[in-house]
């Protein structure tokens, strides 16, 4: 009896101890910018390049004299992808570190957990999370840099319409990103004349999706499949998709727009389409493209410093940091409200995600043209036009 009970208690303890914490890194300086990123855990492929990008550019900016005559100090915490931890770290940033602004929140889940705290403290918060709920409805102090999942759905459906596809299956991750994008896709599908004939989900740590894909494969009139999700999940979906011999086109989301997806999915990624920022195809853009300089410069800097391929996620951090710094320069101060007002006035800012034009009603400022439809060909990205 004793053993049985203690096993049960232990089981609960192990379940609770699923992830471990990361530590802060800090040095004294004048302008404190905070960041809570998912450097480890299931969203590490977001947090890791974001972390590296922020560190690299803060060093560069400080080497060039800082901002408003002051040096920047970056305080980064690792939430391991856990929204509860993100919230705790956000409290610490606001109350103990007293940061003037925040660039971070790798996922929608962690971002939404932190939003109320920054709103209350009236500190500008530039999120790197994907979902549209972050800025719709508009929150006073919350901005974001990545394209929204709604835009990704629209871009995908636009492409499907051009290919004459009207009946699709969906297999979505149950993490914050997948759940949100699934909702947005279902919401806008009707407008493109698209009917969702199969709708399945999988958990963020799931390692085999053949049961779900079998159900999708057997759906009547299936013409294509969309997989909203990020992390290793979509790579496994792509592999299982090939295993089951499903011949209809597979669309992934911008959530997998990094080379590691192609590596993980291997040959099975051939022909997969996804909407993504221009950064992924920086060297393939025509020279006339106004975005070319920003993306090739960032790519060169990141790859030279870290010796790993660039991903769009690090680009979101780049956009967030420079949006913030330009707003601070224009405001001439680091006061929360002044910086917020200037962020809203951002015009013609060319970032890695596209051209940003913000307003009081639009805390993202991107439009559909910033997304490029890509196809994976011979283990590399190719532009679909």
């Amino acid at each position, binding site marked *: 009896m004793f*053993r*049985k009970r*203690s*096993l*049960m208690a*232990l*089981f609960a*303890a*192990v*379940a609770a*101890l*699923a*992830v*471990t914490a990361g530590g802060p890194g800090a040095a004294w300086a004048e302008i404190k910018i905070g960041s809570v990123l998912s*450097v*480890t*855990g*299931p969203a*590490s*492929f977001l947090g*890791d390049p974001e972390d590296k990008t922020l560190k690299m550019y803060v060093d560069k900016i400080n080497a060039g004299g800082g901002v408003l005559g002051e040096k920047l100090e970056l305080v980064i915490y690792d939430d391991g992808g856990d929204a509860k931890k993100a919230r705790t770290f956000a409290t610490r940033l606001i109350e103990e570190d007293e940061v003037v602004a925040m660039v971070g929140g790798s996922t929608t889940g962690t971002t939404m957990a932190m939003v109320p705290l920054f709103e209350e403290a009236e500190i500008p918060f530039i999120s790197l999370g994907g979902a549209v709920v972050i800025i719709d409805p508009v929150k006073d102090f919350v901005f974001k840099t990545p394209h929204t999942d709604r835009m990704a759905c629209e871009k995908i459906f636009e492409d499907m319409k051009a290919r004459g596809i009207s009946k699709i299956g969906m297999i979505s991750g*149950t993490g914050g990103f997948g759940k949100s994008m699934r909702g947005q896709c279902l919401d806008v599908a009707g407008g493109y004349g698209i009917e969702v004939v199969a709708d*399945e*989900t*999988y*958990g963020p*740590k*799931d*390692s*085999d999706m*053949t*049961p*779900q894909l*079998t*159900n999708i494969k*057997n759906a009547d009139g299936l013409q294509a499949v969309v997989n909203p999700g990020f*992390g*290793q999940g979509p*790579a*496994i979906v792509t*592999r299982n998709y*090939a*295993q*089951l*011999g499903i011949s209809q086109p597979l669309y992934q989301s911008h959530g997998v727009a990094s080379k*590691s997806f192609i*590596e*993980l999915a*291997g*040959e*099975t990624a051939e022909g997969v389409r996804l909407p993504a920022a221009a950064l992924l195809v920086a060297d393939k853009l025509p020279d006339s493209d106004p975005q070319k300089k920003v993306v090739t410069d960032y790519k060169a800097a990141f790859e030279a410093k870290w010796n790993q391929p660039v991903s769009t996620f690090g680009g979101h951090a780049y956009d967030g940091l420079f949006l913030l710094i330009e707003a601070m320069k224009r405001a001439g101060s680091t006061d929360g409200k002044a910086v917020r007002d200037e962020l809203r006035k951002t015009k013609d800012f060319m970032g890695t995600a596209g051209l940003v034009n913000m307003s009081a009603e639009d805390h993202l400022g991107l439009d559909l043209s910033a997304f490029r439809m890509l196809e994976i060909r011979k283990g590399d990205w190719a532009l679909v036009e």
Partner: protein
Amino acid sequence: MSEFLQFAFSGITVGAVYAMVALGFTIIYNASDVVNFAQGEFVMLGGMSTVFLAAFGLPLPLAALLAILIAALTGVALNKLVIEPARDASVVTLIIITIGASIFLRGIAQVIFDKQFHRLPSFSGDDPIAVLGASLTPQSLWVLGGAAVIVVLLYVFFNRTLFGKSILATSHNRLAAQLVGVNVRFVLMISFALSAAIGAVAGILVTPITLTSYDVGTMLALKGFAAAMLGGMGNPIGAVVGGLLVGLAEALGAGYLSSEYKDAVAFVIILAVLFFLPRGLFGKTGTERV
């Protein structure tokens, strides 16, 4: 029908991995009464070490062998450095120590390897095999075959070799085994090495299918634990059957019910077993010693 077959393929492949993890639990439990929650970390070590050794240019079979060795040595070190110094502590304390060890191993892996997901190439290509309308990857056959070979080898080892029998003897009665000349400490060490090696083999075989990263161990340990409980903690046959059942239940649950609750299946099984069948399917019927 083809649909059911597809779910079943998925279930037994995943189930075979759970079975191997559960076997690891069983071996250590039998030798020491400890439920080793670092069992999942051996699976991770097997997969990750192979990935990184292969990245250094070692041929895959050699990398895999070295990875098994690394895991086995880690198992021995776990026993020597963590379990043995605390051998006078209660079993529950020892179990808690293994949880600490698993967190430690995960942390080390994060530093030595990295935090990204990795994949190994499939051993015999990626062309699926069609069976009655369902499809199976060649790698699944490797996993199933690997699990079968391990079960057979373990059977022979425990029933046909003197040393295997001395492990069994230790598990039945430690003191008596010691009195007839069995080196109990050595038995314990080999048990850890053996169960770590089995975990590593599972990790290597499954990495081409499920990918691996520093933190895949936690979930596998929980599922493997559920499998071992279902089969009856301490019974090797039970571990294998339990593993396959948990895998099948997950796949069928995801296919026919809702994929939302896939992970919940294993935990519902643990709870159900603890409430209604505390000794598992193949567990010894209880006798209380007075």
